[in-house]
């Protein structure tokens, strides 16, 4: 009785474990010279973990980072930039690197980790906007409300939330119909950060654990947007989602 299942395991086609990891979600941290690294170094791996636990999407357990002037910046379609201190001016090589990345259709999440409780952008947030404006001078950010596909790529979200409640909307630079730079004034990665003991690194205000869960859901949705693009905008989903939105209680 014990041997039979073991034999079955041996005779079944062996799954390809490592094969397929290259296409997995990789919350790559963007590193800019003169600036600190990611504000919450533990957040990317937690982000991957949450994605793997909650969805079918594969994710890198050990996320990578890349410098803005590194030729390998074009090796994946997602980057995130977070910080607490003002971002120094980008060098010409960094601007060129980011432009190459955006030209391929890559997405950058700018997460303001020093945002205040009211959701006002910190110096990091302001400087990041200024530097991105140098990279993409022709576009300016616009607000993204709950009608945007980012709020329904996996979870149905009514607003954006992170470590702080902040504004209800996200902001984004939209190019060719796709959000290419998403700005959050919520410190989403702050809500994901865990310390070495496994405990949450930062308190979430004002909503506590409930708000943290919603912040994690936003992070999952952002990852799904990276992997599925505007899949949930397809007409086939529309009647179903409209029905579900109508059923759910209004805030």
């Amino acid at each position, binding site marked *: 009785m014990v041997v039979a299942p073991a034999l079955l395991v041996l005779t079944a086609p062996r799954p390809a474990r490592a094969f397929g990891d290259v*296409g997995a979600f990789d919350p790559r941290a963007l590193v800019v010279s003169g600036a600190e690294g990611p504000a919450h170094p533990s957040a990317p791996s937690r982000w991957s973990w949450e994605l793997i636990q909650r969805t079918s999407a594969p994710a890198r357990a050990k996320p990578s980072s890349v410098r803005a002037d590194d030729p390998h910046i074009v090796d994946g379609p997602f980057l995130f930039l977070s910080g607490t201190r003002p971002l120094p001016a980008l060098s010409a090589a960094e601007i060129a690197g980011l432009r190459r990345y955006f030209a391929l259709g890559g997405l950058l999440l700018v997460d303001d980790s020093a945002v205040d409780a009211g959701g006002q952008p910190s110096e990091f947030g302001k400087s990041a906007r200024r530097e991105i404006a140098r990279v993409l001078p022709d576009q300016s950010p616009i607000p993204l409300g709950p009608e945007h596909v980012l709020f329904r790529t996996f979870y149905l979200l009514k607003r954006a939330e992170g470590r702080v409640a902040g504004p209800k909307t996200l902001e984004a630079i939209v190019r060719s119909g796709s959000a290419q730079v998403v700005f959050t004034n919520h410190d989403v990665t702050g809500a994901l950060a865990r310390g070495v003991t496994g405990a949450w690194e930062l308190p979430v205000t004002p909503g506590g654990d409930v708000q943290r869960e919603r912040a994690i859901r936003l992070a999952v949705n952002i990852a799904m947007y990276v992997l599925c693009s505007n899949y949930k905008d397809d007409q086939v989903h529309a009647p179903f989602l409209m029905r579900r939105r109508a059923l759910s209680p209004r805030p």
Partner: protein
Amino acid sequence: MHSRLASSGDLPPWAAVLACVLALVSLGVLLALELRRRERGGPSIVATGVVAVAALVLAVLRPVRVAARESVVGAKVVVLVDGSRSMDLPGDDGPRHVARDRAAKEIAGLAKEARLVTMSFGDGAPRVVSDGAPIGSDARSDLAAALRALGTSAEERPRALVVISDGRLDEPSAEATEAALRALGETLRVPIHTVATTRRVLADASVRRVSTAGAAVAHVPLPLRVEIGCEGALACDSLTVTARELREDGPPAVLASGLAKVKDGRAVVDLSVTLDRAGTRIVEVAVTPPSGDELPDNDRRLLTLNVARERVRILHVAGRPTHDTRALRQWLKSNASADIVAFFILRTSSDNPNARQEDLSLIPFPVDELFTEHLPSFDAIVLQDFDAQPYGLERHLPAVARYVRSGGGLIMVGGPNSFVAGGYADTPLAGVLPVALDGTPGATAADVAPFVPSWTDDGRAAPLLEPLRSLAGEELPPMPGANVVGDVREGAIALWTHPQRKTKAGAPMPILAIGDQGDGRSVALAVDGGWLLEFSQLGARTGGRGHGALWDGLVGWLMRDPRFEPAQLELVGGCVADVPARLRVRVPPSGASPDAPLVVELRRLDDDSPPARVELKRPTGGGVAEAKLPPLAAGGYTARVRLGTGPTTRRDFACERGGDEWADSRPDAERLERLAGATRATFRWAGGDMRVPLPPPTVVSAERHVVPFAPSWVWTLAAAIALGVHWVARRRGGLS
């Protein structure tokens, strides 16, 4: 040598006529008015007056004697005989062409003085018929085109036309007005005599005409208007009309049917058919004839419809969201000519989203609905890293395999849940993939070692990879691993292979393979790193366009886009049953195996007869080769050209015995009679009195000699003397 009298050559004819008229008037005045006033000498006045007038006329005319060698040339008369297929139909006494040929011979016998040129008309300009030579059997009977061609010809124009036909003409049509028929005669400004060959109306039920409203587009209902005819005292109050698509993968598929209520020998039925596959498709429209039908060949028509695609409808099913899924989705969505229905598995049963169902945007994967009722509506299915087992696709795999064989497209994209790992080995779907799958227990599903795919010779020559090669050359990004697949199946080729890994047969393992599967096509891409053509160092150098170029080629080839076909096929001049047809094959200049034979395979669509093969010499450096097909029976056919062992290029076509010419078997003598009447000519029945009024011959003179009877001064002097004598006679008679 003939000789005759004439007036002086420098005198215009009107002057001669005027002189004669004046002379007659003068004589009249003399006799009627002046003689009454005379006192005496009436006879002498008259005699001298007549002589004086005659002398004056001769002085004006100055007669000459003309001696010339003359010949009589008959007027050119063109006898236009109907050379269309309808002349093969039964007439009064055997086929109609017997009466036609006999009538032409009789006219030639009667018109001895005319120069007769016999020509046959049918499709386009008329052709001269040599004595005893057989007259062709054209698919049309366009008299108007023949007349126009004669009118614009540089050759001598005819002075009369004789048309011998059954009257069932394409042009002028039965609805042509009197003015239109008259205009036809004015093309040449000659009378058009007509001869009708037959009075006999066959007992015949037929599909007279099938007209479509607009072009045929895949998945879009196409209205068909079917005109049914029933003549010859057949019992046909109501007849069943059916439209069926002739398919290579099985029996004809009924598309629509209707009941025709026949009134006055005619009925019209409106049908609506929907064709799911694009390309040339053969649709049979048939009527169930009543007993006694004398002509069964026109009970059905075979339409060759060129079915276009408004948009390519693609079902994209992905087993999990990855960068590869994203890249493919973005390319599909950016393709304006593609209509995408996508389903991605975002959550499996082992995932815990930590949320209530109503907080999720997930919808159930409608596997049964998609792979049953909606399956035929898709032009292609993309299964990307999708495991068949957990989502209930397994039970639909036979239907998917049938869908591919009946003309659908399938692309299986690699990943940890694809090919062998997805449970597709030993399933019906494996039978329509271009690569074999190892279904033995313990079979290796994937090779996780990174590698760079190698181009095969077939890959280098494949038009579908040309866009990618022109962007990136032969450089490909390193792949993180590959699904383990077997050898390419019959009729398939590998375009990329694994540089190290071999199949059981010892061949390099295919990475990208394409192949024909019945009426459809399939592609196997055994990696999930296609997106690296977009996001990589190579992607950055090519502006990320390599991924789109690859998929443009793959989907385009799957949809038989002519740009990506290995060869082009064209039927020259249509196909008539039992008559050899010609098929033109255009092959590209380069090829993986330039010495490989060029084989045209011909298969009948509406029965199971074995395919015929025609082997051709491949033109050096590419170009055109022509295959002479054996005489084919009436029916639908598919011709495939195969270069070496790879996939084929196909073209469907239909062979009909009578075509449009037999669709309406009734003769139309009335039309011929109207044509003759409109051009002030004569109508005759073949076998009756065949005399028609033809223009007289022309006299042609040669070696002309002109000799005056007397010099001009002699005529003038004689006239002066005669006038003088007359004046004296008048004076004596008391006239002034």
